[in-house]
């Protein structure tokens, strides 16, 4: 509550001084524990801002809405640490100018929502470095444990079952701050690499390609997983990719605005144990 009040005041200050044209935050949603994105442009809207442990969606994707930042005015945004990492990636991939972004950082991992020190993405580099130092937790998730225990055939059967439910609504893509392409590969039909039909084959292809495109870029915000209307555990796939690039290339997505994309760079000493 303290953080919420503090940030409401700060938002009003910034609006009053014309330092930002808009702040993207959260407001009460349609049920008690739902929070929905809010675009604050006035004091009245600022009073609607809510900040509590239910504010989990990563709002960073809204920043790359076409035209939003093209007037070079600043925009504020409420972000958890993963969200700040997505800002770094978007900056590293030239999708936005980080100087235009005023960050209201917060952390919901404790009991109380905690404000994070800093307003510009680079202010949080120490925090992000410390997150990198903490090895990505070997998930205690029972389902992931089950997947890891399976043999390849069983894993295939598991994912076949999961993907068979996919309806290709592309909520995973649309919810993802990293999926900013003007034209998604699946919408490119000359040639049609990915079958657009939502049969299991097409769904496999879609999910494989999406996961690959997010390798080294996914910050694990969970937007895709939560958005999936058919509850495919997408988080596991992306987390596995994050684990792979971390272990193989010491790459932790979103540490800085100048971080090189892991798959557009290389090291001559990269592991090649799998190559015959």
């Amino acid at each position, binding site marked *: 509550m303290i953080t919420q009040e503090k940030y409401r005041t700060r938002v009003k200050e910034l609006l009053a001084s014309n330092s930002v044209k808009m702040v993207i935050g959260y407001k009460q*949603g*349609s*049920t008690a524990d*739902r*929070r*929905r*994105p*809010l*675009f604050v442009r006035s004091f009245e809207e600022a009073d609607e801002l809510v900040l509590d442990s239910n504010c989990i*969606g990563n709002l960073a*994707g*809204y920043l790359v809405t076409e035209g939003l930042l093209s007037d070079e005015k600043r925009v504020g945004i409420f972000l958890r640490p993963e969200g700040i990492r997505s800002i770094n990636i978007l900056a590293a991939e030239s999708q936005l100018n980080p100087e235009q972004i005023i960050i209201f950082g917060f952390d919901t991992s404790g009991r109380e929502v905690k404000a994070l020190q800093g307003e510009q993405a680079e202010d949080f580099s120490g925090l992000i470095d410390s997150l990198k130092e903490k090895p990505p937790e070997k998930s205690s998730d029972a389902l992931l444990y089950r997947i890891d225990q399976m043999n390849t055939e069983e894993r295939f059967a598991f994912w076949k079952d*999961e993907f068979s*439910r996919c*309806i*290709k*609504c*592309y*909520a995973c*893509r*649309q*919810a993802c701050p990293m999926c900013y392409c003007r034209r998604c590969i699946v*919408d490119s039909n000359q040639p*049609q690499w990915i*079958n*657009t*039909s*939502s*049969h299991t084959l*097409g769904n496999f292809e879609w999910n494989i390609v999406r996961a690959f495109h997010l390798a080294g870029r996914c910050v694990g915000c969970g*937007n895709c997983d*939560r*958005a999936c*209307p*058919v*509850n*495919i555990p997408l988080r596991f796939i992306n987390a596995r990719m994050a684990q792979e690039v971390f272990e193989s290339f010491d790459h932790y997505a979103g540490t800085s605005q100048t971080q090189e994309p892991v798959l557009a760079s290389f090291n001559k000493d990269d592991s090649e144990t799998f190559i015959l």
Partner: protein
Amino acid sequence: MTRILFSDKLDNCIARWRAAGLTVFGPVKTDTLSSYAAIEHASDFDFESVLPDRSIKDLFFPQTEPMLRYTIKKRAIDTEDFAPPNDKRIIFGARPCDASGLAIDDSLFGWDYKDEYWIQRRNESVIVSIACTKADDFCLCSSLNLAPDSSTGSDVLLRPLENNKGWVVEELTDRGHEAFLAIAELLQDGSDPIAPIAAVPEKFDLDTCVAWLQNHDNFESKFWKEISMRCIGCGSCTYLCPTCHCFDIQDEGDTYSGIRRKNWDSCSFALFTMHTSGHNPRATQSARWRQRIMHKFNYFPGKFNVNSCSGCGRCSRQCPVDMGITETLQKISTLQP
């Protein structure tokens, strides 16, 4: 006195229907998702949830349907049509909103072009709805001139008895009557008390909304931009909607042969109206959301005299950014016409 199907007879009913060559479907819940699926035993049903995550549309208009196989020869292309399946089916435990959704889409798929895939499946299916005794914050049938016990689209309507003892049977169509003949001897007469139907408060005044939508001046209202600002443009509302019916036709295959398929499509997608030239008449998400609302409550009723919404609330229930028809129409109902 009414005719009653007691819960403990349900297994027998299922066996009878199956024996009569009907495949029995109903709401089923798994660890991951609830939907309408084929069942074998009464215990397979999920009557507890307010309604399945996936709508009944899946059983009549699958997300992807093969229409024909083509084979490319040197000087000709051979084709082989895929007929829709003609299994006889009974869908037991449909929600009245889902059943109403079927009736809404009947008007479209049976309009100028008769969609054989839809019509064949509809003809082979008996819809047995159960009136709702539960609702959640998202249900909005009452705002759409429907109710938790609407019989639209159903062949049989069941009204639950108190304490889950069974259902009062109301046969509505010949098809329903015929299906229940097979189990007639399992029904009993009785006067057990009927459970009260769910209370679904009215959320907006539909007529006010429709009047606003029909006013041409409101087409360019800045309301559309405001209400849809947070829309991320996924298609999940349309895909879970029991009445959204847009589809695309795709050829998939290799050099030598392939399959022509009918796939769901969504007005939420930017690509939906994209021209080859690169021009997109619905260039913004707000234009796309406006289309969805206009289509459901203005254009569709203009053509078919019925709203293209049966009030199931799935669009709001699962929206990743907590939007939906309810919020939009609620706001519209407060605007000046």
